[in-house]
Structures are given as C-alpha cells and as structure tokens.
C-alpha cells in the first residue's frame, strides 16, 4: 500500500539527509584546505624565522646551535595539549651536514628540495618547508606530522558538525510533525467518510477543506449524487414492482380461495386452471420487470459477441411453449445474415417482448413471422403478426411505461413495448411499429450493422 505520509517522510528525510551530508563533506573539505593553508604558512614563517635568528647570531658553528630551536620561545605550557610540540626543525649545511635539529626530529633528512614537500621518515608522513639561505649556506627545514594536521582538521570539522548532528533528529521530528499536520485534513475526511452510515449520501462540506482536497470532495459529492439518484430509481422501481405484483397476487389468492370453497369439482378445476394461468402471467410480469432493469443497466462492453440469428432463434425457442398453447405458429427467416452483437443482454429482451406481444395478439391458427435481414449497412429485425394491430389512438402512447390501450389484449402489464423501446434506445437503434399490409402489426428493430460487430 502506498502511503503519502510515508512517501513524504522518506522524500523529505532523504533529501534533508543528503543535503546535510553534502554540507558535512563540504565543511570537511574546506576546513582541511583552510587549515592546510594556515599551517603551511606557519611552516614557511617558522623556517624563515629560524633562518633569520641564525643569521642574527652570526651563523651556525656546530651542532650546539641546535639549542636555538629548543630555546625558541615555546608555547606556554597549558598542561597536556594535543597540538603541543607539533613542529620539528632541522638545519642542514650545504655540505650535507646536519647543523642542528629540534627535539623529537627524525634522524634522516626531512626534505630534498626547496619549498614545500612531503616525506615519509620513520613511518611518519611529514609536511616540510625548506628555506634555503645561500648567504649562510644552510637549509632550514621545518615540518609537522601529517597525522597532527589530520587531527586538527578533524577537530575543527567536528566542532562545526556536532551541532548539526544534534539538529538532524530535531529536523526529522519537525518534518514528521509537518507531514502529519499537513495531511490531517485527509485523515479527517477519511474519518468522516468511514463514520458515515450507508444511507447517508448527503454532500460533504467543502468550505473548510483545503484547496487540494476540494476536487476530490467535489468528485465524491458528484458520486454521492449519482448513487442517490440510482438508489432513488431502484427504490421507486421496487415500490412499483411490489405494487404491480399485487394485482396478479390478488387474483391468485382469490382463485385459491375459490378452489377451497368450491361446492363442486367443476368450479374447483376451473379455479385451478385460472391459478395456473395467473402464475404464468405473474411469471411474465416478473421477467418483464427484470428486463426493465436490464435496459437501465450500463452496457457491458466486454460481453462476447453473439450471433444475431442465434439470439433470435433462442428467443423464439423459449416462446415455443406459449405459441403452441395458443395455437400460433412461429416462423423464422434469418436468410443467413451474418451479424454478431455484443448487446445480447438488451437485444434478447427486446425481441422476446415483441414476439410475445405478437403471439398474444394473434388468433389461434395464425403465424407470427420473425425476420433478420441486412441491408445498406443496417440490421433489421422484423416481427409480423396477423392480430388486430395497435389501435391508432394508442399508437403515440404504446411505448410509455404502463400504458395499456383499451383495445390491447387484457392482462398486459403495459411494460412490454416500453422495455423494447428502452432496450432499442440503449442500443442506439430505432423501433418502428406500423400496421402490416393485409392486417396485423409489423414491428421492426433497426440497428447499425457495423458498430455492434467487434473487430475480432
């Protein structure tokens, strides 16, 4: 799980740490350079000073002159000092004889050349300045041990870095606090959301929220609004469905009571037949209610493409029982039309309701025709019957939900054609209802032939 807080903390701490580390290295380097410069200058001055002292004393006669350096004013003794006795001195004649040296100086010659040099003598690295005095014929070599210099640099650097070391954890704590308080509005939002009951879809208050969260809150409020709308539709649908089912249930209950009270077998049998019919009709209504919700659901674009002719054939096969019971013949003409649809979930209910209507409207012995044809890039499903057709007065209203024409076959729910219309609209097609030549009704669903056929 990615956490903004953790990410911010890591980025800020790593960034601060890196900058801090760079600063440490930089301080160390510049300290080393500066200290090196200062100490070099000291070496140089010391060498010149020794040379000038020798000159004033009239030169060096012999090794006794060594006391020159020893007797040179030493630093006042301040007890133990790390940097005490950090300088050594050798005075060499041009003849290659050691004229004088300070205490603690190594036995070998400290340098070969004039100016600054470094040399390892007795396993120690020495930084040496050699002053050549041609008049006196001597070389004055003053040096200090490298490790002493390092210690000095280290001391100075540490003096600078110790406070920074202390600051680092403080800085980390500060960053942590800042991140926490900066993200607090998000926590509050999350808490407000998690505390909400499922029924509360009221919009979140935006006024107090920081600008960064406002787009999210607006988006959430938009979502709440849409969910609320959806839930309202579902609620009204549920109420409506329950309401619609009460009438067939009342019929069933009444017939059941008649069967119980029936004084004779004929009345009872008749009631039982009515019950069976009532169950069929109720079943149809329930299916239509489900179809109705199907037409309102978003289209599943990942549904596999199905053969249009097969969808029609399946629907017709499912209605074979109803047609048979009413003595109606179903005739399919698909003419080998190659067309596949990814919207079977919409197409099948539309076709089923059209065919069902045609069968129910047809007199016994009649034929209902269902055709699938392709022309001019369009796909045309036609359902033709020889029933009474839709009354002219009802024609403008037949696709309205629950509209039942006075002349419509009794017991219709008024849902069938509204489902067809909604499904066809969802598919982006066209529904045409027209009187059929020679009597009856001709219903057509016209769909775009290309868009529903996927490339694969």
């Amino acid at each position: 799980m990615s956490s903004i807080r953790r990410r911010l903390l890591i980025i800020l701490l790593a960034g601060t740490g890196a900058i801090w580390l760079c600063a440490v290295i930089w301080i160390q380097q510049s300290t080393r350079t500066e200290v090196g410069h200062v100490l070099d200058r000291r070496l140089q001055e010391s060498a010149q000073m020794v040379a000038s002292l020798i000159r004033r004393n009239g030169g060096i006669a012999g090794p006794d002159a060594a006391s020159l350096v020893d007797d040179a004013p030493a630093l006042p003794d301040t007890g133990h000092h790390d940097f005490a006795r950090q300088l050594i001195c050798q005075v060499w004649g041009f003849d290659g004889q050691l004229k004088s040296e300070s205490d603690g100086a190594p036995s070998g010659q400290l340098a070969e050349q004039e100016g600054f040099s470094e040399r390892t003598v007795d396993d120690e690295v020495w930084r040496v300045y050699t002053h050549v005095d041609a008049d006196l014929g001597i070389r004055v070599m003053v040096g200090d041990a490298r490790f002493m210099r390092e210690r000095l640099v280290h001391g100075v650097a540490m003096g600078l870095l110790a406070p920074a070391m202390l600051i680092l954890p403080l800085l980390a704590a500060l960053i942590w606090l800042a991140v926490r308080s900066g993200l607090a509005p998000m926590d509050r939002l999350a808490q407000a959301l998690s505390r909400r009951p499922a029924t509360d879809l009221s919009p979140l208050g935006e006024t107090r929220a920081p600008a960064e969260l406002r787009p999210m809150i607006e988006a959430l409020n938009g979502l709440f609004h849409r969910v609320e709308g959806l839930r309202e539709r579902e609620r009204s649908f549920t109420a409506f469905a329950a309401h619609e089912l009460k009438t067939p249930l009342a019929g069933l209950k009444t017939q059941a009571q008649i069967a119980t009270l029936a004084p004779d077998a004929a009345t009872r049998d008749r009631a039982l037949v009515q019950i069976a019919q009532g169950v069929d009709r109720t079943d149809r209504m329930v299916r239509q209610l489900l179809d109705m919700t199907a037409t309102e659901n978003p289209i599943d674009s990942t549904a596999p493409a199905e053969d249009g002719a097969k969808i029609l054939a399946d629907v017709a096969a499912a209605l074979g029982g109803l047609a048979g019971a009413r003595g109606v013949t179903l005739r399919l003409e698909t003419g080998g039309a190659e067309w596949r649809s990814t919207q079977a979930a919409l197409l099948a209910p539309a076709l089923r309701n059209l065919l069902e209507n045609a069968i129910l409207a047809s007199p016994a012995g009649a034929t209902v025709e269902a055709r699938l044809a392709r022309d001019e890039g369009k796909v045309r499903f036609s359902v033709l019957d020889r029933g009474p057709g839709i009354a002219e007065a009802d024609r403008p209203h037949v696709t309205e939900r629950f509209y039942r024409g006075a002349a419509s076959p009794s017991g219709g729910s008024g849902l069938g054609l509204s489902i067809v219309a909604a499904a066809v609209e969802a598919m982006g097609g066209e529904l045409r209802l027209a009187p059929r030549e020679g009597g009856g009704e001709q219903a057509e669903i016209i769909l775009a032939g290309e868009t529903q056929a996927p490339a694969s």
Partner: protein
Amino acid sequence: MRLLIVEDDPVLSDGLAVGLGLSGFTADAVGTLADARAALATGGFAGMVLDIMLPDGSGLDLLAELRAAGERLPVLLLTARDRVRDRVTGLDAGADDYLGKPFDLEELAARLRAMLRRQEGRAAAVIEWNGLRLDPATQTGRVGERELRFSRREFAVLHALAEHPGRILSKTQLEERLYGWQEEVESNAVEVHIHHLRAKLGRDFIQTLRGAGYRLADRGHEA
C-alpha cells in the same frame, strides 16, 4: 344481489365473479372504464367493485363522474395502492369502502354485504320478516328453531324480496338480480325458485301479484 366488477386483470376478474357468486352475489365483470359506463347505463346493479388503475384511465375518474351525476350506487374500491393517503383519496372521491390487494375473498364479501346493507338503511346483518331470520353471510334462514337451507339462487330471490318486504319485484327485476350477462336464463327459472321457496317457507309466505310480480306477505302471517 347484482354487482358490477371493474377489473382488468383476467384472473382476478374471473376470481371476483366466481368467488362473489359463491357468496350469493351475482357479478358481472368488465375490464375497462368504457365497458363499465356502458354496463352502468343498463342499470340493475346494487353495487360496484372498482379497480383504480385501468387500461383506459383511473377508476377514481369514473367514481367522480358517478357522484357528480348524483349516482348513489355503493362503490368499493379495490386496488394495489393501499397506503393511507390512497385510501383517504379514494374514500373522499366518493367510495363507500376501500380494500387493498391482495385481499381475502370472505372479507370482501362481508364488506360488500355491509355496504349494501347500509345502502338499504339497515344496520343489522340479519333480516327478519314474519318470524323468518335470513342471514346473508351464511345464506341460510331460520324459522324458530328450524334451520332452512337454500340454493344460491333461491336465497338470492328471497333476499331480494326480504330487503323491501312490501315492494313488488317483477320477474324481470328478479332475473336481473339473479343472472349475469353471460348466464342463460331459462324462461321459468324464477317461478321454479319461488316454488321451491314456498315449499320451504309455506305457501303464503310469498305472494304472487298477477301481471306485476312477487312480494312477501304482510306481517302477521304465520309460517
């Protein structure tokens, strides 16, 4: 008693006609407002069972029309919409009673009996005349300790005559109350029922007024 049922669901409509028939009513069923208006124009109904949602409009509109025209026909609203607000609307529109779907057939019959009784200006469920006690709920009669059983049609004839003991009902009026539209009426059916009733109640309980019809004999007659 003859009722007009206005209900578009075929199974329920059939159930109402048959079920109310079992309770002693004669019921004619129609499925649309237009048919209901046509049926009412023919007259002869003692009451109406009316659905609200009908293919060609709302039953409440028909009810309002009837009441506006001064029609006092008792009307029981039968509908799936049975929230309090719907009931109030229906009753205020002029309905005499209101029953939500699904309902109990016996309750519907009892409510219809009560509704028609009030229409006749009676409060008691049992009709008494000349020592005969008629109970429309059970379609039985009682004279003293003796219990009398009648066929559905016999009871309907007796009930019709007993509602207004002094009033003369013609053979046609009795036939109208006995038979729905779809039923075949045999020409001497009423005479046959009167004959059977006289066998059970005594010859003089029902008087024949030649050329006019039938009525119950005056008080004081001993069964």
